[in-house]
């Protein structure tokens, strides 16, 4: 019995534990001890049209129960991705979701079209409209419901594959953006991306990250993520992929109860590249011990006080 079978749109995933964009590479270059076929899916690092070298160091730093990063969307660009990396996916049977980022609507569309033009085993796309570390495609796009709706409506026209939209928490009311992208035809909402933060090195009197502002992730932001997912779940009917500070199976159950259909593991992969797989095993054990035959019974099963 597979208690963890997970459906989103027309796709069946072995389980609802995915790896988060930017925290697992492209899935092609893993430590020997990671058996990625066990994962529900891998979401690639954000791909842009042109290759990007990313930001100068320092790019990452630890914070209390979290970390800041400003990688600056370093990636190989769509052409090399298609030429060198996509062919490698043929030999693996883990489901791949390609995360797409851009500086203009046109760039998102171009990347998506390039991917659609080649025959691949990719099951879908995650549209990153929430990167805190670039100007457009992050803070401008992802905080504006109209712009977000327009972009997703356009992208929807060009693909029948899964279309996830990844939202930023750096917004007064995330439910408005969630509704706007659902209306535009998104298959699922991925939330949350990192929270804008900053660190200061008092010895050097400099920011801890070159770009001054950076994205906060890890257990520190879990309460923020849970609140947002719970709020989103009240206004949309498409599935939510919960992201933010998940480090063990208990955290996964919190996200399921809050309303998530699947989750992504981010920062935890840095501590242990096997974090997702450990969590799958733990979760299975929990379900078994508690006589729960399908994990999906937990989705949204939160008993509010009032």
């Amino acid at each position, binding site marked *: 019995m597979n208690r963890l079978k997970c459906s989103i749109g027309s796709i069946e995933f072995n389980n609802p534990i995915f790896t988060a964009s930017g925290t697992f590479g492209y899935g092609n270059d893993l430590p020997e001890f990671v058996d990625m076929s066990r994962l529900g899916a891998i979401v690639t690092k954000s791909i842009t049209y042109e290759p990007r070298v990313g930001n100068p160091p320092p790019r990452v730093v630890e914070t209390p129960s979290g970390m800041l990063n400003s990688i600056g969307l370093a990636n190989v660009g769509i052409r090399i991705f298609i030429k060198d990396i996509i062919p490698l996916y043929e030999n693996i049977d883990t489901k791949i979701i390609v995360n797409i980022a851009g500086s203009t609507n046109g760039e998102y569309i171009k990347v998506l079209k390039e991917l659609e033009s080649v025959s691949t085993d990719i099951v879908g796309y995650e549209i990153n409209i929430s990167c805190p570390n670039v100007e457009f495609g992050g803070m401008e796009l992802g905080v504006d419901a109209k712009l977000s709706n327009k972009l997703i409506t356009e992208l929807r026209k060009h693909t029948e594959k899964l279309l996830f939209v990844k939202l930023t928490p750096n917004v007064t009311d995330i439910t408005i953006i969630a509704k706007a992208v659902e209306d535009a035809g998104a298959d699922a909402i991925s939330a949350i991306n990192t929270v804008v933060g900053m660190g200061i090195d008092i010895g050097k009197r400099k920011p801890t990250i070159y770009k001054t502002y950076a994205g906060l992730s890890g257990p520190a932001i879990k309460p923020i993520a849970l609140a947002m997912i719970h709020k989103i779940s009240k206004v949309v009917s498409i599935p939510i992929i919960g992201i933010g500070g998940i480090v063990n199976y208990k955290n996964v159950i919190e996200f399921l109860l809050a309303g998530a259909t699947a989750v992504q593991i981010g*920062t935890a992969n840095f501590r242990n590249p096997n974090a997702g797989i450990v969590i799958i095993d733990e979760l299975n054990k929990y379900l078994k011990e508690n006589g729960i035959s399908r994990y999906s019974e937990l989705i949204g099963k939160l008993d509010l006080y009032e």
Partner: protein
Amino acid sequence: MIIDKSDIIENTQIAEGIWRMVFKSVEIADRYLGAGQFVSVLTDDNWEHPIRRPMSIADVNEDKISIIYKVFGSVTQALTKLKSKDYIDVLGPIGNTFNVDYDTFYPILIGGGIGLSPILNLSKCLVQKGISITTIIGAKTSKEHFLQHNPNKNMFLSTDDGTIGINGTVIDALNIVLKGVKNPKIFACGPEPMLFSIQKILEEKSIPAQFSVESYMACGVGFCQGCVIPKKQNNEYYLVCKDGPVFEANEVKFE
């Protein structure tokens, strides 16, 4: 590369603020390739510090692996609390190794501050092979040294305050040493300003060198793209954990 909960065999202070830890890991020792490689450690189940801490391998003796660490902040402080029989969660070995073409060159090894681990490792390997080398180890003051200044055996210590060995930095020591050798090649590890200074001197003198460099790391496995160092030749970056930590001196740029 593997993650191993390794048994600690020894964890002792060897100089002011400097500790040596020896732990046992067949898994990591089996995969170990040579001096330059490092491991990344996690002190405990505490998520206040989510990120591992990279530490160069100072020695591998059968399945016993040594690291030498300086107490900087919370995690290195917590490391000092561990005792033999406790375990430590170690990811490794990570990265590449020094490439010593000792047939062509005379190796001069330089370790500054806590950069001495991979240098001591390399030094021991070369000496065991019977290769003649010169080693320079620098620190601020004698209290931070745990080795003996021994010019007869080509082992030079330097201190900023002159309390032991050569009075000055490793650069001063290097300038002295360079006078007596032919066809030198430098192998260095230490703080960025030190490597930067060495880089400038060597460029002037066209002396080849390999540097083991540091960069803030979130993963150690190529996932996070955090650990970059600028390439000298263009505006791109190397990943220290995947492409390094050892680079040819003329490949990397310091700012």
